[in-house]
C-alpha cells in the first residue's frame, strides 16, 4: 500500500485535556450562535440579519439552520471523523449552530452545546470500537477515502483557473501542478506531494485575478472620456456600473454590522483562543482534506492546505459577516493553520485570541478592499466551486473503493446502486453526502447478509 494510506489504528482516543477543550468550546460556540453573534454555516449567516433585527423568530431561524446543516453533519462530518479519527468543524460546529439557535434561554445554549461536545468525544469512541468489531468493518474501509481526497483536492486551483480564465491558462496550470507533484514525489518523498502543487496553483489564480483587476482599473481610467468599454471579462461589464459614492446602503449596513461585532470583541477573542487551541491539540482538521493529514501527523502540510483553502473562504465569510452582523465560528479559518503549527497550547490560546481580534477589527477595511477587487471575489467563488467539484469526485470514488474493500463486486453493486438511485430520484440526499451515506448503508446490509450466511467478509 502506498504511503498515503492511513496508519490510524483506532483513533478517537482523547486525553482529558482534549475532551475538556471540545466540551468547553462547543458550549461557547452554541452560546455565540444563540446570541446570533457567530454561526459556522456560511449559508445560514445571511439569514441572521432578519433574526438580529427581529423580523424572523428563533424557531424559524433554527429550522433554516437545521435544514441547511443536517446533510453535512451526517454526510460529511460524521463519516470523515469516523474514517480519519480526527474531529472536524462540520461534526462539532454545525450542531452547535442548531442547538444554540434552538435554545430558548441564554443559559441553556452552552449546556446543549457542551452536551453535544460530550456526545462527540465519548459517543464517537464507542461507535468507533463497536463498528470495528463488526464482521464487515466499514470504518476501516472508509479510510480508502484518504488518497482520492488528498490528491484530487490538490487540483482545485486548476479547476478554478479554468473556470475563471479559460482553457489555455487552466491547462497550463494543470501541467505545472502535475510537474510539481512528480517532482515532489521524487525529491521530497516525505512531503505530501499535493502541497507544493496546490501552493503554486493558488498563487497563479490570485496572480491572474489581481492582474485582471489592475488591468481593468487602468482601462477604466483611460476610458473616462467615452462610454464604458464592453470588452474584457464578464465580471468587468458588471463592475463598471458601481457608483463611486460611499454613502450607499451597502456601506451603512456593513458599518453597523462591523460595529456590532467590535462591541463583542472580548468574546470573539475567547472563541479564537479556543479554536486555535483545538487545532494545536492535533485532534481536529479544519478543511475537507486536512483531517487525513492531521491523522498522519503531517501538520506542516495540513497547515498549507488549510491556508490556501482559506483564500477561497475569506471573501465569503467577510461579506456575509458584514451583511448580517454575525461572524464565522472559526473566523476566516486562519487560526487552523496557525494552530497546527504552534508548539505549545498556551501559545495557541494567545495567538488565537490575537488573530480573532485582528480579524474582527479589520473586517470593515477588508469589506472595502474586497469591493475594489471584483476579480479576487470572483476567484474566491470559483475556488469554492472547484473545492466542491474535486471533493464530489474524490468522495464518490473513495466511497466506491471503500465499498469494494468491504464487499467486492457486491459492495460496489449496493453502494453504487444507492448513489445512482439517489441521482435518479432527483438527489434526495445532498450529492456530496450521498456516497458516504451509501457506504454506511452498504456496511449495514453486508453485516446483515453475513448474519444470514449469505455473505462472507473479504479478508484483507
Amino acid at each position, binding site marked *: 500500500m502506498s504511503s498515503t494510506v492511513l496508519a490510524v489504528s483506532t483513533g478517537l482516543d482523547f486525553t482529558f485535556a482534549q475532551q475538556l477543550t471540545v466540551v468547553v468550546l462547543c458550549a461557547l460556540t452554541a452560546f455565540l450562535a444563540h446570541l446570533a453573534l457567530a454561526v459556522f454555516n456560511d*449559508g445560514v449567516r*445571511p439569514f441572521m440579519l432578519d433574526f438580529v433585527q427581529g423580523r424572523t423568530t428563533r424557531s424559524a431561524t433554527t429550522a433554516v439552520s437545521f*435544514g441547511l446543516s443536517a*446533510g453535512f453533519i451526517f454526510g460529511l462530518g460524521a463519516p470523515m471523523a469516523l474514517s480519519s479519527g480526527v474531529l472536524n468543524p462540520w461534526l462539532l460546529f454545525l450542531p452547535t449552530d442548531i442547538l444554540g439557535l434552538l435554545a430558548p434561554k441564554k443559559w441553556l445554549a452552552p449546556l446543549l452545546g457542551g452536551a453535544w461536545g460530550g456526545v462527540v468525544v465519548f459517543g464517537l469512541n464507542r461507535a468507533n470500537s463497536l463498528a470495528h468489531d463488526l464482521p464487515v468493518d466499514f470504518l476501516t474501509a472508509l479510510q480508502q477515502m484518504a488518497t482520492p481526497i488528498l490528491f484530487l483536492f490538490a487540483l482545485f486551483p486548476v479547476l478554478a483557473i479554468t473556470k475563471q480564465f479559460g482553457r489555455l491558462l487552466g491547462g497550463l496550470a494543470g501541467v505545472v501542478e502535475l510537474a510539481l507533484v512528480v517532482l515532489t514525489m521524487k525529491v521530497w518523498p516525505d512531503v505530501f506531494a499535493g502541497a507544493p502543487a496546490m501552493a503554486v496553483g493558488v498563487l497563479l489564480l490570485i496572480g491572474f485575478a489581481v492582474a485582471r483587476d489592475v488591468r481593468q482599473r487602468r482601462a477604466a481610467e483611460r476610458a473616462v472620456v467615452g462610454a464604458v468599454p464592453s470588452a474584457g471579462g464578464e465580471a468587468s461589464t*458588471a463592475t463598471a*456600473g458601481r457608483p463611486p459614492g460611499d454613502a450607499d446602503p451597502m456601506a451603512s449596513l456593513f458599518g453597523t454590522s462591523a460595529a456590532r461585532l467590535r462591541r463583542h470583541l472580548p468574546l470573539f477573542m475567547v472563541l479564537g483562543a479556543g479554536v486555535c487551541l483545538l487545532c494545536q491539540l492535533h485532534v481536529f482538521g479544519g478543511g475537507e482534506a486536512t483531517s487525513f493529514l492531521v491523522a498522519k501527523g503531517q501538520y506542516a502540510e495540513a497547515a498549507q492546505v488549510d491556508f490556501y483553502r482559506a483564500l477561497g473562504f475569506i471573501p465569503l465569510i467577510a*461579506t456575509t459577516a458584514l451583511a448580517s452582523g454575525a461572524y464565522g465560528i472559526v473566523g476566516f479559518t486562519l487560526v487552523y493553520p496557525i494552530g497546527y503549527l504552534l508548539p505549545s497550547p498556551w501559545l495557541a490560546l494567545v495567538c488565537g485570541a490575537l488573530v480573532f481580534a485582528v480579524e474582527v477589527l479589520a473586517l470593515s477595511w477588508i469589506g472595502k478592499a474586497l469591493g475594489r477587487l471584483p476579480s479576487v*471575489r470572483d476567484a474566491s467563488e470559483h475556488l469554492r*466551486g472547484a473545492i466542491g467539484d474535486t471533493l464530489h469526485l474524490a468522495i464518490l470514488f473513495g466511497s466506491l473503493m471503500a465499498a469494494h474493500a468491504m464487499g467486492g463486486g457486491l459492495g460496489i453493486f449496493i453502494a453504487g446502486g444507492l448513489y445512482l438511485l439517489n441521482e435518479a430520484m432527483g438527489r434526495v440526499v445532498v450529492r456530496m453526502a450521498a456516497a458516504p451515506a451509501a457506504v454506511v448503508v452498504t456496511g449495514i446490509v453486508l453485516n446483515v447478509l453475513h448474519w444470514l450466511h449469505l455473505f462472507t467478509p473479504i479478508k484483507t
Partner: protein
Amino acid sequence: MTTILTGGIGKTAVADAVRRLAPAGVEVVVSNDMDAVALLQAGRADYFLGTCQTGAGASLGVLVGLMGSATCHTFGRSVPSEDEIGALLDQGKRVFGFAVDQIDAIAPALVVAIASRD
C-alpha cells in the same frame, strides 16, 4: 431586454444553462453578489440567480441583507413547480438562490418563466 445576473459557486454553470436555452430578449451576465446589488438597484439588471452547496444563504450573500427578504427567495435543494415559480415572480421576487447540484433542474425552469414574462 431582460438581464439575468448569475453568482455563487455555480455561476458559470448557470450562465451556460441559460445560454443553452437562448431565450429571446434575455441576456445573461456572470456577476457576483456585491456587484449585483449595485446593478439591480440601478435598474441595469433585472434578476439574480445564485448558487451554493446548500442553495440558501451563501448563494445570495449580501443580497439578502441589501435587497431585503421581500425580493429574495431561496429554493434550497427543492425543485419548484412551474406554478410556484410563477407565484414567486408575481410576488416580485427577483433574487433566487438554489443548490449547485440542482442547477440542471431549476435554472432552465426559472429562465423560461422569466422569459415568458416579457
